[in-house]
């Protein structure tokens, strides 16, 4: 069980709750269970294969999971998992550039 911090843009899918308790012992399990309870969040966070989308950042206690053990990062009852969509844009990187 971990606490998941849901930022304002995703709260419509959690009934306005900013923090929800979700079972799981790794980031992967927590996100999978989160997606089961709140399918709207799951679709935004994970792709069809169940992997975290490139522009979604998952923090465990303030540390980005990719700097830890990725989706295998263990989480416990005292840990907080935060879901933060990136703020990004620009001219390049999609391969279809053009302003």
């Amino acid at each position, binding site marked *: 069980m971990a606490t998941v*911090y849901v*930022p*304002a*843009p995703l709260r419509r899918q959690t009934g306005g709750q*900013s923090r929800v308790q979700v079972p799981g012992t790794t980031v992967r399990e927590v996100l999978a269970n989160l997606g089961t309870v709140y399918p709207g969040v799951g679709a*935004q966070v994970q792709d069809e294969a169940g992997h975290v989308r490139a*522009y979604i*950042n998952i*923090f465990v206690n*303030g540390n*980005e999971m990719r700097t830890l053990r990725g989706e295998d990062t263990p989480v416990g009852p005292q840990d907080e998992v*935060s879901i*933060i*969509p*990136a*703020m*990004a*844009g*620009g*001219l*390049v*990187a*999609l391969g*279809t*550039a*053009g*302003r």
Partner: protein
Amino acid sequence: MALRLSSDHLQDVVAHARETFPHECCGLLAGRDGRVVRVCRGRNVDESPYTYRLDDRQLLQFLREMDQDGLDIVGIYHSHTASEATPSRTDVARAFYPEAVYVIISLQHPEHPVVRGFRIVDGTVAEEDVIVQ
């Protein structure tokens, strides 16, 4: 809903754009009901004239502070250093905050910066008024 901000806030975001030139700047506009209460200057980790990505850890910090203060993201701003103040395709593709107004500061003509706002929802762009008052 239009975005309302003070002239100080407007000057702050334009100053931020000028300070980071030739790179793009980025940041958040925190507020309530479409009115800006404070400008949160972000760090563009891309350090690029063409792209921006607000430092992810800084973003988490901003969001937590805003929660504590009862503020919402009413705007997300970035600069275009050599093009007009309209969203690029990448800006649209990466617009993950449908409730915010995306504010673009164009320094295409540096003496006459242009500031415009857009709401971007599911790939659809609609201009919003940016009202200084």
